[in-house]
């Protein structure tokens, strides 16, 4: 009888092990401005006497993976389209992150989070009409036919100043030369009690040059010129510094 109980217990343990699944990993995307939740069309202090608002903030978030201490990479997602303009429409909705969940991520200690803004060269050689409507790459509004490129991100809004003319500004980075990948060091044990990565994008830092020096939007307020990629690269590269990560 004891033998039956013993084997029974082993079977139960084995079956439990067989059932064991890794928890889902969630990435929450938050849009902020200088520490406050970013609300579309709300004015925030920019540089000097200028205030700024945002009417559009979105981007392709791609090729995201975690790296563990052994240097092994675990893919999280190939591509997401993150659209804060559709989410952060008032004070209440701005507190709610854009959430994406992923399964089959092994429990482990991870040391690096890597992601790209835009779409890689292979995907950028495709076009919206190659995709069905459930794929974010079908968004023809994020493809610039004259460039033969996806628009990797869109940031636009208006600059206000009591003493100066309002200025509409717009940056639509695209083209392979602007594609950027960021690897951010982390110390994170992904497991049952730690399943959430919060990515906070501080929109003020998109424009920071150094310290308190900010990009002069009035000097060049719009740019979607394939022959002048420098401002677009500047904005895109600033995404790394504008991103902070917390875990739950």
């Amino acid at each position, binding site marked *: 009888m004891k033998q039956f109980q013993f084997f029974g217990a082993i079977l139960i343990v084995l079956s439990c092990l067989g059932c064991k699944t890794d928890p889902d990993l969630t990435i929450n995307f938050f849009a902020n401005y200088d520490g406050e939740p970013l609300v579309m069309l709300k004015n925030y202090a920019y540089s000097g006497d200028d205030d700024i608002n945002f*009417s559009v903030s979105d981007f392709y978030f791609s090729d995201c993976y975690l790296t563990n201490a052994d240097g092994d990479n675990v893919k999280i997602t190939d591509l997401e389209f993150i659209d804060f303009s559709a989410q952060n*429409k*008032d004070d209440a909705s701005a507190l709610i992150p854009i959430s994406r969940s992923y399964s089959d991520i092994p429990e482990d200690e991870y040391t690096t989070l890597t992601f790209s803004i835009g779409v890689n060269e292979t995907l950028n050689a495709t076009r919206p*009409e190659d995709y*069905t*409507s459930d794929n974010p790459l079908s*968004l*023809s509004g994020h493809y610039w*036919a004259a460039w033969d490129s996806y628009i990797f991100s869109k940031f636009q809004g208006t600059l206000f100043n009591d003493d100066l003319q309002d200025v*509409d500004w717009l940056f639509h980075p695209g083209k392979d030369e602007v594609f950027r990948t960021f690897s951010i060091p982390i110390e994170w044990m992904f497991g049952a009690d730690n399943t959430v990565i919060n990515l906070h994008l501080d929109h003020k830092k998109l424009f920071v040059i150094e310290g308190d020096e900010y990009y002069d939007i009035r000097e060049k307020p719009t740019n979607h010129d394939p022959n002048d990629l420098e401002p677009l690269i500047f904005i895109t590269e600033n995404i790394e510094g504008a991103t902070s990560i917390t875990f739950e």
Partner: protein
Amino acid sequence: MLSCLQACKDDTNSGVDTDVRLTEIPFDPESFEVSSPDGFPIFEQPENNPLTVEGIDLGRHLFYDPILSRDSTMSCASCHNPELAFTDGKAFSPGVDGIEGPRSSMSLVNIGYNYRGLFWDGRVQSLEEQALLPIEDPIELHHMWDEVIQDLAQHDEYPILFRKAFGIENANQITADLATKAIAQFERILISGGNSKYNIVKFDNTDVFTDEELHGEDLFIDSGAADVIDAECSHCHHGGLFMGDDFFNNGLDSTTNFENLVDLGRGKVTGFAVDNGKFKAPTLRNIALTAPYMHDGRFATLEEVVDHYDSGGHPAPNVDQNIRSLGLSDYDKAALIDFMHTLTDTSYLYPELVTNPH
């Protein structure tokens, strides 16, 4: 035709006019495959309403039939006239009671490719859902679906058409759901554009743009060509359909806040003030045939439309940043219009399926 089926009438339900068995009629729907024009998005259809020859035919009959209106004076085609690229040429469309609706009727050409919200404000997501609404809208057909269904079930021809399309076994199985599915199928095959000059130049390579058309394209898409102004058009009208996948305030009305607008547009759907005054950027395919323009038909001609965008529009807190004074010359404006005319195609991919069957 239905009279020959009366022998099949179920005696247990005699007296119910709509109780007519249809099982003697074959149900063998033929699948219908769409071959989209070059450059168009991938054609999609809902899994629960695949195109069939019989479904499209039923939808065509319903679309053109005033049986759908309360006084049998108007059909879907009254506001969506095939002669006008399935619009009605009016700023506001009157319904059966002569009351004008608040917005201009939208073209149905290529509407099947519209996957991101229908109507000017995107308030419904599918053609099936859309087709439900005008029947009971008091300023449109002002009927009741229950009564429409009764009329269809008692009709000589419709029970047979529903049988062939959807396999119903009895006329009393006709429903609004099936009727709207059929109308949606018909609307999905209203495809045009493959014979437009734009497609012929871009994909067939058997013609070339004139200098004016070419200049208009440069302006429209911001080609980067030297000394060519970026007219900012393709921020909102893009892809093979030259259509927006979002909603925009294009500077039609001045306001200092979000509330003082006659028509809240997208904002009424989402409930967010920042969306007030935003509307869908419609397809420019066949735009030369769909005057008047804008959601309220305020512009009679494409010249007026281009003048509006050249002016930079009127200020409002959420006017899109691409609406700005452009500084177009008369030649630029004419070239833009010439380019838009290259998007005209008066033919249909399936012309035999588009015409009024009544």
